[in-house]
């Protein structure tokens, strides 16, 4: 069957997809025409904003925005590369993009998160400069194949010259009113975001100097380069000489700036302001990151407003005091859960739980659920517990721990603690803090697993006759294959990691990385007495 528009890669098609293609041919050809990118796409296509809007949408960033505007200069002024740096969530990316929206100048933005290798970075920049869009027609391929920096420079120079000529000729031909919809100026800017990730690339020793030297290599005054990084400039070391870009520093927000940020778009400003008076200072002692604070404040605000029946009222002094008294005891648990993100309930479930929703959000932040909030099969849970025990208990005690009686609390001999043993205990504790959970070979894990499940089966079969939900069959070979599969999924979930190889034994050793808290939760869900099996010094 023939396909509409010859793809460059021949693909096998099913009958239904080819039929669908022929039906939609007319529509796709129409959309194909309108989807070809033009020079206008290089600038922001939203409504431009004026300077005051720019300042008001970013409270506390007036200095930085002014600095950027100074460095970018009036239209068509060449610039030296700029290096914008600051901690996470300080507004670097959004501000530079909005500044370009305000200035209405064409730019090409690439982030080193989505362009995670040199080839993807180069090709994505070239695609946009060559006004090439990946679509069905060209098989979703880039305009040019470009892996090496040398090729990139050549292609980039050609593409930039093309674009600049394009801009120049268009601005000559069109009249002034048609120019209104077009980007300003004859310069084009390249923005490289998340530059700190380039340091971890394989080719970082050549990529970083290359990127910083791009200004010198291109020697084109019509091109402006802007680097955005989450780490300070002194973390980029190089033995090469290059013009260091001009640094623009974005400090973390001050408390006053945070207050302005959170007050934006609030329906009831007076009420929210009294809320912020109560919570902003204590929470800022932990962190001043906007992303963390906004999540916790939105849940906490709901708690704050609980006594109010009407959310639109303006509180007087007396009411403020009452609301504060209501909020006060909840602040500490929220502080301790400040970085937890509440799990999103699905739409259907939410309908049922609407009445309890406020409590759930609070609970999920404060208490982090007493139950394990993800699903694991029973055998996986037992495996997790066995891994935890194998990592925590020394191997020499296995025989006494897991004997037929199950549990070892009766074996603990109370001895008077002498000074030497106290010292030894302290040293051992220190070692445990430093070393972390131990490694164990696969055989030991399976041995513990079998002991535990046989005990559990014995006890559960005492409670319920016959029926057990464990799936532990009589034949050991079936048990093994199931367990090995479960082990690999535990490894994928990072509950168990592969430790280093022991050169003498040659077998892989594993290590459990779950916290005692999680192991307790899992054990509780199985009604397994974990503390009896845990060796405590």
């Amino acid at each position, binding site marked *: 069957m023939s396909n509409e528009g010859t793809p460059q890669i021949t693909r096998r098609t099913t009958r239904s997809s080819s039929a669908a293609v022929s039906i939609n041919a007319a529509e796709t050809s129409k959309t194909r025409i309108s989807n070809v990118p033009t020079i206008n796409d290089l600038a922001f296509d939203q409504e431009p904003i004026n300077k005051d809007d720019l300042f008001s949408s970013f409270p506390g960033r007036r200095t930085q925005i002014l600095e950027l505007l*100074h460095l970018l200069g009036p239209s068509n002024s060449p610039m030296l590369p700029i290096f914008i740096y600051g901690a*996470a969530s300080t507004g670097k990316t959004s501000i530079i993009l909005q500044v370009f929206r305000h200035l209405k100048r064409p730019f090409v933005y690439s982030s080193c998160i989505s362009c995670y290798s040199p080839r993807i970075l180069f090709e994505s920049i070239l695609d946009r400069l060559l006004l090439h869009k990946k679509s069905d027609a060209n098989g979703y391929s880039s305009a040019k194949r470009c892996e090496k920096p040398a090729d990139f420079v050549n292609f980039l120079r050609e593409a930039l010259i093309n674009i600049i000529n394009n801009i120049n000729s268009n601005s000559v031909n069109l009249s002034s009113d048609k120019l209104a919809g077009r980007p300003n100026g004859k310069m084009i800017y390249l923005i490289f975001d998340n530059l700190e990730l380039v340091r971890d690339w394989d080719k970082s020793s050549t990529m970083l100097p290359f990127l910083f030297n791009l200004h010198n*290599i291109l020697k084109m005054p019509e091109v402006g380069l802007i680097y955005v990084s989450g780490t300070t400039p002194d973390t980029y070391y190089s033995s090469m000489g290059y013009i260091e870009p001009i640094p623009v520093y974005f400090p973390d927000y001050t408390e006053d700036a945070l207050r302005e940020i959170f007050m934006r778009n609030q329906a009831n400003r007076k009420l929210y302001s009294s809320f912020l008076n109560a919570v902003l200072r204590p929470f800022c002692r932990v962190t001043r990151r906007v992303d963390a604070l906004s999540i916790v404040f939105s849940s906490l605000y709901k708690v704050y407003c609980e006594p109010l029946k009407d959310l639109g009222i303006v509180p007087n002094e007396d009411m403020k005091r009452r609301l504060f008294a209501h909020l006060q005891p909840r602040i500490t648990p929220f502080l*301790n859960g400040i970085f937890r993100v509440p799990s999103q309930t699905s739409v259907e479930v939410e309908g049922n739980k609407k009445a309890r929703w406020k409590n759930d959000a609070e609970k999920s932040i404060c208490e982090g659920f007493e139950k394990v909030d993800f699903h694991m099969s029973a055998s996986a849970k037992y495996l997790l517990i066995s891994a935890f025990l194998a990592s925590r208990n020394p191997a020499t005690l296995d025989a006494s721990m897991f004997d037929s009686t199950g549990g070892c609390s009766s074996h603990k001999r109370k001895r008077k603690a002498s000074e030497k043993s106290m010292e030894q205990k302290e040293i051992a504790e220190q070692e445990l803090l430093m070393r972390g959970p131990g490694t164990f070979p696969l055989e030991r894990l399976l041995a513990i697993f079998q002991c535990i499940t046989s005990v559990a089966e014995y006890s559960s079969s005492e409670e319920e006759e016959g029926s057990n939900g464990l799936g532990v069959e009589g034949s050991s070979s079936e048990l093994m294959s199931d367990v090995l599969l479960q082990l690999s999924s535990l490894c994928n979930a990072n509950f168990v990691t592969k*430790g280093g190889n022991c050169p003498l034994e040659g077998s892989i050793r594993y290590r459990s990385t779950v916290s005692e808290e999680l192991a307790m939760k899992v054990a509780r869900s199985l009604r397994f007495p974990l503390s009896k099996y845990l060796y405590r010094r």
Partner: protein
Amino acid sequence: MGFCTMMTIVHLRTYLLMVTCVRLLTVQEIARQLCVEHQLVFSKMASFDENSQFIVSMLRECGLAHKTIIFVLDEFDLFAQGKQRVLYSLLDAMQSVTSQGVVIGISCRLDADQLLEKRVRSRFSHRKLLFLPPSEEDLDRLLENILYLPTDTDFPCEYTDEFNGKLKNILMDGRLKDIIHAYLNSNSTVNSLLRFLFLAVSYMDVESGFLSLENFKTAFSSMQRQPKMESIKDCSILELYLLVCMKRLEVKEQSSYNFNSVMKEYKSVHDSFQTSDHYSQDVCLRAFENLLQRELICFADNRGYGQSLEFRPVKLLISHAELHQGMKSYRSCPAVLLKLMDR
């Protein structure tokens, strides 16, 4: 322009070519540039041998036609890694009678010629040109050259004269000389001077259209960066607590410590001082991760061997003096922390 037809310049930027097949790429790049210069068609599909033969024949042709080829190797010390085959073959090609060529190597390293192998060094003429940072007179000339408005532009005459006149006063001002000397103390290259001047010009008041001494002062102060101090000022109070606890562990001469040991110290600080800033393990772990992101601390081991975050050894990336200084200039630093630092 007789000189231009007599010389062909091949500019090799070594850092662009330092990928896996250096020789292949270098030869390809040389061939490409030669083709561009002499208006020949360059084929990307040409093999290494074809390109090398082409270069050799070009050298011979240019030699016969009394044209020189100048090879400029930017950062050639990168070629000096490994077996130096590129350098050897290039310099060897220069040795033949027919070729008329010069190889000029540029490097930031003063000892770049020491890196050369014996066989390469024997073909090297040992001529070195040292480029020093600008002297006092050079500096004055540079400033004038860069900053003065040329008279043959579109600007009105009166404006240019007034601009240059005001600029002259600033350049004669002793305070400006102090600023520039102070700036060049830290980085005396021409590039960095250019950077400083660009910054000063960008602060120019667009309304009046004239440079002022204030612009230079502002540029100077915005160049005075202390990134670690800035990072410390950005920290939250909990993060400062963690840093101080790590410092105390170092003072106690604990050779290696991890998050758990820091937490132990943190708890003991809280127990002895009854601070109001005692938070749960989860919160402290996230603050710890924030510190890692800010690069104020880092892991002391290289790979981690699958250890989770709490057990990997860490170390401080700032000195005690820096931490102390940062905390003193920190707004509303808790008195407890300052007291702990003084011990």
